[in-house]
Each structure stands twice: as C-alpha cells, then as structure tokens.
C-alpha cells in the first residue's frame, strides 16, 4: 500500500464483506421462513437469492429471513425493501422466480408485477 487511495480501495472492498453488520444497505430481501414457507420451498428460494446476488456481485443487497408472515396460501413469501421506495411483497415464489426478481427488480429496478401480492402504501 502506497497511498491513501490504496487504503480507500481496501476499505471499500472490506466494507462489502461486513455489509451484514451495516444497517445502511440499499436493498433488503427478506424471505418468510415459517413452517409453511419452508414446507413450500422457501429454503430453495432463499438459496437462489443468495446465489444470484453473489454471482452478480450485488454488494449493497442483504438477504435475510423472517418468521411466518400470515400469507400461508401464497408461500413462499418474499419482501423486497428498497431504500426510499415502498416495500414490495412477492408470493408463490420459486427458485426461478427468485432469479428473475434479482435481475429485473434488484438490478434493473423494475419490480416484477406478475409475482407481487402486495405493495406497501
């Protein structure tokens, strides 16, 4: 390391690796992992999100989970909460749909309307 700019470069890279501990992330993907969610394949959905986010190097996205959300008939349910925008809830998710959400919504910024079951007011 020779300059402050080098230090800054290292810092930015290291911050990505600590992003889970940082509350200032751009997008939070919250997968509902209650019993019914898991029964309907929420784990595969979450894995698809994790995998897709990693391969696309989306460093400002955090994937996490929560308990039962109450939409048992539409499990697996996933919330996407984007900074400064109303939260979106996707239902009846699958691994393939998850990958599509990553591309369309998280990368291009266009929520995938056909999967949405509710939008935050």
């Amino acid at each position: 390391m020779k300059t402050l700019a080098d230090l800054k470069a290292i810092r930015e890279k290291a911050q990505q690796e600590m992003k889970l501990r940082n509350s200032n992330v751009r997008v939070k993907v919250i997968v509902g992992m209650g019993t019914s969610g898991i029964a309907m394949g929420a784990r595969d959905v979450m894995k698809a999100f994790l995998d897709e986010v990693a391969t696309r190097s989306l460093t400002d996205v955090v994937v996490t989970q929560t308990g039962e959300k109450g939409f048992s008939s539409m499990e697996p349910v996933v919330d996407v909460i984007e900074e400064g925008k109303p939260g979106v809830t996707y239902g009846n998710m699958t691994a393939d749909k998850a990958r599509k959400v990553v591309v369309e919504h998280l990368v291009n910024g266009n929520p995938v309307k056909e999967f949405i079951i509710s939008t935050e007011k």
Partner: protein
Amino acid sequence: MPTKRIDLLICCGSGCVSAGALRIKERMIEVLHQNNISDEINIIETGCMGPCDFGPVMMVYPEGIFYKKVVPEDVEEIVNEHFIKGRPVKRLMQQEDDKALATKEEIPFYQKQVKVALENCGYLNPEKIEEYIALGGYEALGNALNGTPEEAIEVVKRSGLRGRGGAGFPTGMKWQFVRNAKGDQKYVVCNADEGDPGAFMDRSLLEGDPHRVLEGMMLAAYAVGASEGYFYIRAEYPLAIKRIKLAIEQAKEFGLMGNNILGTDFCFDAQVRTGAGAFVCGEETALIASIMGRRGQPLPKPPYPANEGLWSKPTLVNNVETLGNLATIFLKGTDWFASMGTETSKGTKVFALTGDIQNTGLVEVPMGITIKDLIFEVGGGIVGDHKFKAVQLGGPSGGCLTNDHLDVKVDYETLKEKGAMMGSGGVIVMNDTNCMVNIAKFFLDFSVDESCGKCAPCRIGLRQMYEILERITKGKGKPGDIDELITLGNSIKQLSLCGLGQSAPNPVLSTIKYFREEYEAHINEQACPAKVCLDLMHFNINKDKCIGCSLCARRCPVSCISGSRQDKYTITQVDCVKCGNCLEVCPVKAITKESGMHDDMKKKLQDLAQEALEY
C-alpha cells in the same frame, strides 16, 4: 464475494471464553454442518462485548439480535428457530419486566455508555485487518502523515486527552516533551502491564481491537519523531499478546508499517515484550528497565523517560487506552472529543465493573458521570437484597468511596480530592457484608507482595502497616493503632520512590477516613461489625428455635457442638474453628453469626496470657 446471509458474532473475550464461548462455537459449527447451512453463516470471534456477567454472549446480524448466557444445548434451538425459520429465540434475550429486549440498543446496560476506545470492540473480527480498515481504520494515520508532527501534537493538546493509566498526565504535553527532547533515536512504549486486581480494560481492548492500539502508537510515534515502538504486555495475557503480534504482522503485510509508510518519510517498526507480571513494572521507569532486560525496579525521576528512557533515549510511554482513543480523536475532531466530560477531564473512560454488582463487565462512559449512575444505572445496582456499602476505585492504589459520595462526579481531580483516584479503571463494588478493615488488609497484602524492595518506606513501611492490620483483625489491636496507621501511611506516601509506594497506603487511609468506627469496633470491642474477621465473630445457636435434630453436631469437623433432642444444642466456643458448616446445614435457621469475640474465648485468652506471665 460473500454468499453469507448471517454474521454471527460470538464474544470471545476472556470472560466469555471461560464461561464456555469456544464450546458454543464448536457446537455451532457442528449443528450448522448437520443442517447443511454452514456456507450461509459467518461465525466471527470478536473481542469483549462488555456484559461479562451475561456471558457467553453473542450477536446475530443483520438483525442485531443479542443473546446472553448461551449454553451448548441452546445452539440447536438458535439454528432451527432463528437461522432457519427466522424466529429469534426470545428466551435467550435480555429480559426486563416480562419483555424480551432483542437488540443491544434496547438493553439499559448499553444506553448510558459512549464508546470511543471500545467503539469496535465486540463488533469486528480482531484478527482481520480488513475489518478494521472497513470501519475507517488507519485513515487517521494517513491524514496525520499528510500534516506535520507539530500539527498532530496540537490536535491531542486541544482534545484535552489525559493519560488513562491512572495518573492523568496531559497526553499532548507528554508528547511535546518527547518531541522537544534531543536524541538521534526516540521510542514509543505502550504500557499494557495491567496489574490491578479486578481490572481488565487494557486486556479487553488489546484482545478486541488490537489495530486501534497499533494505529494509536503509530500516530504517537509520528508526532514525537520515534521510529521504534514496544508493547509491554504481561505474560498473563496470552491472547492479547497473540492478537497484537498478529496485528503487527498484518500491518507490515499491508505496507502500513515499515519503511516510508503511505509514501511518506515516516518509518516505523514495533515489537512485543512480555513482562512476568510484576505490578511495579506498570511504573514507567521500571517498565523501561524490564524492556531492556534489567530487573524491573523504578528509578528516581528526573530524568524523566521523555529525556532519558529506553537505552537512555527520549521515550514516550502511553497506556493502552490512551493510544486507543487517538484514532477516533483524529477522525472525529477535537471539538467532538472535548464536548464530552468535565472542565478538566475530557472524553470517556473505560471501567471494569466487578464485585457485588449486577452487571459485571466492561463499560465505557463519559467522564463526569456520577458514581451513582455508574453503579446503579450502567452497573444495574447491587446483587441480591444487600445494600451498597462502598466502592474501591483505582485498585490497590486507589481509595474507597461510600454512600455519601454517590453524587460525586468521576473525573481526575474530584476523585483525588475525595481520597480515591481514577486509576486505570478498576471499579470494585462492595455490599454490606464486607468488612472494610479486611478489605484494606487485602489490598495492602497485594502491595506488600508487589513492592520491589528498592526503597525502605515501601518495603518496610507497608509490611509494618500490614502487621498492624493483621493484629487488628485478630482482636489484638491496641489503642493508638489507628493513629499509627495514619502516620505510617502518610510517611510512606511522601517518602516512597515510585507510584507504587506513594499510593499503596491509600486503601487503608481512605477506609480509616470513612469507616473509622469499624476500626474502632475491632480494636476497642474486639468485634467485627460485618462478621467477617473470624476471630472477632462467633456462631450462636438460638435454643428457642433449635429442634435438636443434631445435624449441626454431626457436620461439625471439630466436634465442638453437643446436646440432645431435649436439651437442644450448644457450641463450645473455645474449640470452634468458624467453618460455618453448622450455619449451612441447620434446617430451621437457628444458627446465626454474631459480631464480637465470645466471652468464653476472651476468658481463655486472658487465662493463657496469665499462664504465660506466671511461667
């Protein structure tokens, strides 16, 4: 690129490790593996999170959930419920009024705290330099290197930072002395010879955020013009030694240490020296002697280390916590730092809370906080139904404060005025079951052991004081003993060569000042009011309550309890060894501790004395 979704921070400070944190980590790895989710979760060992009494503790991010008192059997539930189903385990959270407090921010223990030196402690992985850099590490150094050393000294002077090792000498002024001293080679030494009983601030900081201390040392080195540094750490802190050595290695690897740091002319190298755990080596001249491989004994001052220190070269000696404050001061500015604290004491102070207090642990609070807030708000008050009696600040060099001092503000001057001292930050809280004469004896015993023996007031005087205390606690105190203790104490304070002797009488003098009646009871009435000194208390069986079950008699190791179901039981006082077994086993609580030597015992002692005379 991370595919992780959870950062699990397990506190691996020494407190939590001894409470079993490593077993939990092993179990966690096992359970995660069984559930096939090892690759989704990051397990990070951090330094001390603070609330050692709750240990082992852990935090789960991104939610920031705080779990306490986790045992290996809980791990499966945490993984199944929280990590897989996203339902945090309420049972393991801190509870208050039937409500589970999920995150750190909700817990009262943390609310009055302001973390400067401990900012990252318990939050980052101390063995990864990248995490320190991610949190702004080494930026302060980079910025300072773009300015002049004088500017760096000016920053520290304006911040009002004072030495956190105990004496409270203004850090900026100390730097200026070393800067001004003439010498072709200068050194910086980090004093990590933390030896007070009940103090673990420096250890926690070195273990939890070693790079912060290292960066602080480099800032100091640049300011005073030193090119070499030494960490003097006691050998009893193996983890701190390991972590700081690793930090030095990593800094070298990243080019943050060595020649021409960040493209400037500044060159710096640091080494670790381990001490063999002699208390006196915390005194700077003794510490310097020890680094040079000599016997750890202090030298008269002047010359001060700033002019003639390590190998007779100008040397700056700063405490761990002092160095730990620097990076944040340089980044956030002097005004921010000086806005905390009192007129003469700025910033924050780390304290190690121990003794009869609810929340034992490591805390950092703004200077100027009252003793009451420190003990009852942050510390959570006294354990059990007991009352607060006294608090010993500054370990064996400090003094005690009482109920009357709860509104006293914690700053260097005020504490000194009241007969205590800031010290390095050990806070030992005592409830009403403590005998203050005995406490004073305990601390003095420590100082007698740790006296290096170089100067007579400390070597002989402290021993004399100890013998007087010993006889007072044995019921052989004489009228005039208290005055003798005061005279001796004051002389030792004035005549001793170094800080050890100059402060060692403090616990005795301050307990005499605030608890003189306890000393008097010991001497005049041969009674220990707190029923601690065994010779000055006795056990008694209340015959009205006794049911004659004979349990006490059967448990007595010296068979000094006799009686029958009809006559009830009695203790033969002269044979009693005060083991307390009878008190523990009595099913109807008929046995009590009584203050004062029993009359039978007094008579026996008189008879013995008479016999000796006649012989």
